[in-house]
């Protein structure tokens, strides 16, 4: 996939907040997804629409021999470089005839403070005017640092291009006023696209409605702008703990470890230099003493 022209025009900055300030000041309001998992029926129309619009290859040999997971009725299993939408089937069956399926259409969260963007050493990952996060395929060199940094396991290598890839929130569609392919295809409106502020209000009303109906665990994941990563531009309505959906409770920035790890290494470096110098200096003193004795 080529890099969106407007996105490429943005300056390459690592500091998420700086880019956010730049982008929002210059352009439109933040856009994103609200995914109401309670109305998802697991049809995977979003997965197919995403693959079709973005011209992503099917898994395996293209369908002649379907790959079955053997773990679930869900055979996609995970997001990767060629699967940018994935409907998770959470099969909660403590007994054979007593249980439930939870469905969740997973996608890149387009974090407000994006870990992938923060660590990317080539500047390939940028923030667009919609506050979404896009990987420029013509800049990425496939170092995979972003894969390790993503707290949601969203990014992976596309083995066709050799670069890291993920959902672009259909930048090519949104930049001309169209809705992303996945939300357009969703038959139950489980995936809703729009301005974040509007989606948040809609999501909160839905949570209130579910809780009034007795669904006490109904909660929003990633909607809080004061929460982890400054909030997510693709946020979710869940009816169980985040871990049940394979989501981290408190996603974090990778640079939280930069200072302590660097400090410890620097301290060790100083100590080892002193130890090394002392060891060899002692040797030199002996040599000098010998020379003097001679």
């Amino acid at each position, binding site marked *: 996939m080529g890099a969106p022209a407007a996105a490429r025009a943005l300056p390459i900055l*690592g500091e998420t907040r700086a880019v956010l300030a730049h982008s929002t000041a210059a352009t439109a309001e933040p856009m994103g997804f609200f995914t109401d998992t309670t109305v998802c029926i697991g049809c995977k129309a979003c997965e197919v629409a995403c693959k079709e619009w973005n011209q992503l290859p099917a898994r395996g040999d293209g369908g002649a021999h379907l790959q079955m*997971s053997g773990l*679930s009725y869900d055979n996609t*299993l*995970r997001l*990767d470089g060629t699967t940018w939408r994935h409907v*998770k089937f*959470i099969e*909660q*069956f403590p007994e054979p005839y007593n249980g439930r399926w939870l469905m*969740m259409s997973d996608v890149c969260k387009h974090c407000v403070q994006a870990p992938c963007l*923060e*660590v*990317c*050493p*080539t*500047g*390939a990952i940028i923030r667009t005017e919609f506050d979404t996060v896009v990987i420029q395929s*013509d*800049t990425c*060199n*496939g*170092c*995979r*640092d972003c*894969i*390790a940094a*993503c*707290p*949601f*396991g969203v*990014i*992976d*290598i596309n083995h066709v291009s*050799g*670069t890291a890839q993920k959902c672009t929130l259909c930048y090519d569609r949104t930049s001309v006023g169209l809705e992303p392919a996945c939300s357009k295809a969703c038959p139950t409106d489980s995936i809703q696209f729009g301005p974040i502020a509007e989606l948040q209000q809609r999501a909160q009303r839905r949570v209130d409605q579910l809780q009034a109906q007795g669904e006490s665990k109904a909660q929003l994941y990633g909607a809080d702008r004061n929460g982890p990563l400054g909030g997510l531009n693709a946020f979710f309505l869940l009816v169980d*703990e985040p*871990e*049940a959906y*394979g989501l*981290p409770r*408190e*996603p974090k920035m*990778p*640079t939280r*470890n*930069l200072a302590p790890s660097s400090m*410890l*290494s620097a301290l*060790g*470096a100083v100590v*080892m*230099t002193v*130890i*090394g*110098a002392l*060891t*060899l200096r002692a*040797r*030199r003193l002996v040599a000098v003493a010998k020379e003097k004795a001679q």
Partner: protein
Amino acid sequence: MTPLACGLWPLASALQGVPSDTFFTEPPHFRWLIILYFFVGGVSGGALLVSSLLRLFGAPEDRAFIRLGVYLSFIGMVVSAILLILDLGVPLRFWHMLIQNNTGAPMFKWWSPMSVGAWGLLVFGFFSGLATLRVLRDDRRLSWSTLEFLHRAPISNFSAIGGILGGLFLAGYTGVLLSVSNRPIWADSSWIGLLFLLSGISTSVAALLLIARWQGLIVASTEERLQRFDRIALTLELVVLVIFVVSLGSVARAFFNASGVLLLLGVVGVGILMPLRMERGSASPRENVATVSILVLFGGLALRVVVLLGSEQVHVAGAQVFR
């Protein structure tokens, strides 16, 4: 494969404890090329550190080991660069690490260890190159008279101090790179950088001693000093390794498999305790130099295998986490 979290989340969590948030991520496929780079880079960095220390603080008879260390660091640097480039998804775009491909401006992020590492390797290469030119001149393999300036005190000291700093950086930054992520084990401890630094120093000294023996180069006094330095590095490495595992807390469960066995037997047993024991148990530590060096090198490689593959094997499938 054991499901750690699944639809039966409350049961799983009660049995196994709530996993770190790092368990919900995907592995970056840092496999053998990266493992080899971390190992070779550690040896290369440590070799330049040791040879620079010997140049600044050593005696005249250390010259042969200085030469060996410089060559080892330079060859290691070249091999490291090749391994890193080959590991990229698009190897011909390696320069995107240093130059912005769309503006031509320098590409540098001080808060991204991989970005700093790319520049660090370049700087290390510069100092390693300077040291190599000087050694080649000393060996009369290069007769350019213009290289005489490398022997002048300010340049010589600048080169040696740069070698110390560059060597320490290359040996240690790889662990910091791993910690600045969201992967299990790597992001759950801040001690990997220090651990890799100490391991880089111990393996580089072992490599120097081994190659020296292989070449029939025996300078008893230098060997003894280096062995003492190596014993200190190994002892500190063992202490930091214990702290590292303890600091992982419940995440240390990721080592309850083959990688844990390799950690215990390969890294601690064969790579640290056996060499320390062999040196103390023999009449003269110099008796077993080659064997001890091989064991230390094996332990250093095993450490990187354990740390990288121990995390790589944890992955998500559906809503389940496998390890």
